[in-house]
């Protein structure tokens, strides 16, 4: 059991009335233990039904489980209790985006920025949503307070809602051209094109290796490196996905994360007729 979960579990055992249940549930959720997280959150909320952070946490768990309707209800409850709850406002924007309602997602993100102008995450998300809406969306509202949108903001917001959606997840085609997502370097600058060019070679080499060795089709290359774990996986016919996770993320979790991102990428490519 990781140290943070052990400490939070001990704290909750010492005092079951404490609000630390929400932290424990969120830590479990981040580790991919969603059912355990759900149990902790629901139990905590029976004691603290007016705890907005608890409802926000519950909504995130439901969102991770793919139950968007229950996630919506939980975030609505959190906002009913605390109308300025930032996590819930962001969550609602995420849901609206997932449901394809880009106009409403943009409006929700504008609400977040009105309350927290320095929220860089919301600012980036707004740029991504506006890029998704195209020129019409950009003209509909006030211009975003971003002087020059980054290259990642101009790409389709395929991985919106994923951790590292425009900095650690990259979708490219077999020629090494970027399709969606983005990859940044240590200084936060866009390094997508360089990475895509290098990765296209990996895909060809993997296919050749699997074929010559009689291994059938390859499904993933997991690389443990000095500062990050990388997962590269083929998506559909010829596209390639790269997911970069911090070294502290277990390889198994990185693979699960990549599998989820791969599903989203595949659905998006199908939608594009690719």
């Amino acid at each position, binding site marked *: 059991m990781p140290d943070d979960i052990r400490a939070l579990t001990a704290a909750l055992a010492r005092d079951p009335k404490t609000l630390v249940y929400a932290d424990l549930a969120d830590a479990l959720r981040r580790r991919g233990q969603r059912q355990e997280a759900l149990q902790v959150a629901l139990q905590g909320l029976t004691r603290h039904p007016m705890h907005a952070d608890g409802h926000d946490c519950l909504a995130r768990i439901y969102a991770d489980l793919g139950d968007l309707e229950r996630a919506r209800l939980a975030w609505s409850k959190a906002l009913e209790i605390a109308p300025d709850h930032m996590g819930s406002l962001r969550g609602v924007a995420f849901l609206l985006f997932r449901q394809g309602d880009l106009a409403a997602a943009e409006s929700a993100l504008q609400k977040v920025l009105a309350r927290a102008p320095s929220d860089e995450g919301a600012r980036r998300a707004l740029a991504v949503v506006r890029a998704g809406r195209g020129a019409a969306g950009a003209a509909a509202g006030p211009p975003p307070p971003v002087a020059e949108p980054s290259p990642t903001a101009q790409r389709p917001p395929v991985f919106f809602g994923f951790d590292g959606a425009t900095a650690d997840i990259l979708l490219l085609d077999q020629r090494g051209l970027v399709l969606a997502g983005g990859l940044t370097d240590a200084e936060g600058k866009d390094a997508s094109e360089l990475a895509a060019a*290098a990765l296209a070679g*990996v895909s060809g080499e993997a296919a050749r*290796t*699997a074929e010559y*060795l009689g291994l059938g089709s390859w499904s*993933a290359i*997991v690389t443990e490196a000095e500062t*990050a774990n990388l997962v590269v996986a083929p998506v559909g016919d010829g596209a390639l996905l790269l997911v970069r996770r911090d070294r502290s993320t277990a390889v198994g979790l990185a693979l699960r994360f990549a599998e989820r991102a791969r599903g989203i990428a595949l659905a998006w490519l199908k939608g594009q007729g690719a």
Partner: protein
Amino acid sequence: MNEQLQRALDRISRVRGVRGSMWVAAEDGIPVAQLLMEGVRGKAVAALAASLARKVSGAAAATGAGRVRFVQMEAAGGTLLVAPAAQDLLIVALAESRVNVGLARLEMIRAAEAALA
């Protein structure tokens, strides 16, 4: 040195599902020592693993991930595992899909670190 390399291969090949393991010169993909089950084409595995490792190292550098410590290529019919070691060597294992990757990885990294000593 040769005995040390062979001992490492012996340990790796004892992991259930491993069909063969080998030390490979990273630069030219030539096998240095190997312990393979019948039917495993050692020269092909060595050459392809070295080539894949070079490409992956290039991609890791381009993504800012730094020096590669371990590579695992999963395929429908098996898994190829590669760990860079000292003296420009790679330790390579070819395994079935059901292999305990965690155990094979441990043995390979241990062997790679021992090669440093």
